[in-house]
């Protein structure tokens, strides 16, 4: 059964005015998100992944301007709004917090140090009229803290953020985000500031919550290693463009874009020891004067002559898998992914076979 789209981003193009010139941060990206689905957006700092989510919530700074595109958000079965067209008041009242909620990287900066945890969770419930009385809000808050795996919720409700550990704080932030039962949860690097053990707890929690509440999730991260467990689909961003998009299994087992190859082979593998990690040489390009052709060509060992002259279109690999690289053109030479990566993926596949 085909689920319907909750969010559709079409041809979004966005730039910032800086003293040094116009920075073309997002260059014509399109994607969609179905109800109850998790999309991971992966990319380096400066690839435009965070700005994309900020555009969805209308949180772009004053020097930024949307040049083109639309962000359609389904309100109910028949109605949808273009989040780029509505005014800030409407967003604040009807969208932010209530329909789309966001979790940021550092829980300490998103929590108010002078307010108890309970009050911060209840605030948005009362504001958006999701609870009719304080007593009801209190009861809901207790259930929420329980849902996000905080023990002794009655005691925690009265505590301040500084009395909680890092993992605990991030759980509170998630509880705040879930307070109004949003349709879409944006998680912007929610585990980057946390320890491995806490990270894996939080990832499990996010998955668990999705199962229970059916919320759709956009998961922003720079580490492909982290999201294998949570993502249904993955979009890889580079220099303001989506360069590859597909189901998690397609991105991890059959990556097609040289940048995705680079990202995957720079993660050390625990399974085959002694294997090399390959680094991607150089740094992302300056987007004040974006390169003419494929922005990744300058860092790629697989660049063709045409990569420096013309931007590759999205080539279709399967119904769900697309990649923007000239290597997929029928006239391009046959190129394989790096051997290190191929060997590693084979190890994964063999392991699966032996488990069956």
């Amino acid at each position, binding site marked *: 059964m085909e689920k319907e789209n909750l969010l559709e981003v079409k041809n979004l193009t966005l730039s910032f005015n800086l003293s040094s010139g116009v920075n073309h941060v997002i260059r014509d990206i399109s994607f969609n998100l179905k109800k109850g689905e998790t999309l991971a957006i992966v990319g380096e700092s400066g690839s435009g992944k965070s700005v994309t989510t900020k555009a969805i919530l209308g949180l772009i700074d004053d020097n930024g301007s949307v040049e083109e595109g639309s962000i359609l958000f389904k309100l109910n079965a028949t109605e949808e709004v273009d989040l780029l067209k509505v005014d800030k008041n409407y967003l604040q009242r009807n969208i932010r917090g209530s329909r789309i909620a966001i979790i940021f990287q550092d829980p300490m900066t998103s929590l108010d140090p002078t307010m108890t945890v309970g009050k911060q969770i209840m605030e948005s419930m009362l504001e958006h009229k999701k609870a009719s009385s304080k007593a009801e809000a209190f009861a809901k808050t207790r259930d929420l803290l329980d849902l996000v795996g905080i023990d002794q919720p009655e005691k925690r409700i009265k505590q301040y953020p500084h009395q909680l550990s890092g993992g605990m704080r991030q759980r509170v932030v998630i509880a705040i985000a879930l307070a109004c039962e949003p349709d879409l949860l944006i998680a912007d690097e929610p585990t980057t500031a946390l320890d491995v053990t806490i990270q894996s707890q939080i990832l499990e929690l996010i998955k668990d919550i999705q199962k229970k509440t059916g919320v759709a999730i956009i998961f922003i991260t720079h580490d492909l290693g982290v999201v294998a467990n949570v993502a249904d689909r993955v979009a890889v961003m580079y220099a303001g463009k989506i360069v590859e998009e597909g189901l998690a299994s397609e991105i991890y087992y059959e990556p097609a874009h040289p940048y995705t190859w680079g990202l995957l082979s720079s993660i050390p593998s625990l399974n085959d020891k002694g294997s090399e*990690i390959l680094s*991607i040489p150089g740094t992302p390009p300056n987007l004040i004067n974006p390169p003419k052709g494929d922005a990744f060509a300058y860092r790629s060992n697989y660049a063709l002559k045409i990569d420096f002259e013309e931007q590759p279109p999205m080539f279709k690999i399967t119904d769900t898998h697309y990649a923007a690289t000239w290597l997929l053109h029928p006239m391009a030479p046959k190129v394989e992914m790096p051997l290190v990566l191929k060997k590693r993926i084979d190890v994964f596949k063999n392991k699966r076979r032996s488990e069956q």
Partner: protein
Amino acid sequence: MSERKVILEVKGLDQFFRIDRKTTIRAVDGLNFKIYEGETFSVVGESGSGKSTLGRSLIRIYDANAGEVTFMGKSISGKLDTETKAFLRKNMQMIFQDPMASLNPRKKVIDSIAFGLDVNHLTKSPVERKERVLKVLKSVGLLEDHLNRFPHQFSGGQRQRIGIARALILEPKFIIADEIISALDVSIQAQVINLMKNLQKNLGLTYMFIAHDLSMVRYISDRVAVMHVGHIVEMGTVEDIYENPLHPYTKSLLSAIPHPDPDSERLRKRVVYSKTGVNYNAGTLRQLSETHSILATDEEFASWQAGTTPPPCF
């Protein structure tokens, strides 16, 4: 194995911080270990495990409360005379997590890197000074043009390269690298790690690598020590720790590592570790093999060895 030369030996190192009359934090609590010349020794653990404190105590940013540290045959604990201090500063260097915080934003790269030369009066002329800076700068993959720039003109990975150059300028033997890649993007992490590996090969350096990213630690290390609340709970070669972990805390850490493999990720079970019933202070370090040791009391040791739980992540 036993003939390898020891570069650093730590015996009974304690580093406590007194908070008030009632509370003292025992950040590093009676550590014993050796680091051999030319190897990469990694210390892993969660935040609050004392791994960074350990590095800082060794290089004498903190004064340890107790313990004996021998570095290249010389004692570097207690009060140091001028000569030993100079010896320590020259041969042991540290690289920090956030390169922006450890570089002076108003100093040009050349001056930041040459600082060690300047305070120690090691160069005779500006020409020689520039030559030496240029040599390390090139060895970390930066260019001559970069000499007269300021830190804000660099990307994160390049800044960390400057941090590395700064540590290398005095030609030390031993480098403590404290979470040097955690602030970097994944693709840049690989660049910095491969650079560190190359430098080690070319210059014969010994590293103590402090990190919480266990997959990177496996890639770079020869031996690993797992720390938890001030104690080394398990120590051994990479194979010992990653393929035959015995301590439940090590197992729990390993089980939390995410893999870039969606199918096996769906099946991954996290091992939960609870410290209740485990008394680190009563435990003694016991050898499982020549290279592999674990902190445990008799009962703990017996119960862990009897436990048939297989290593979690393979």
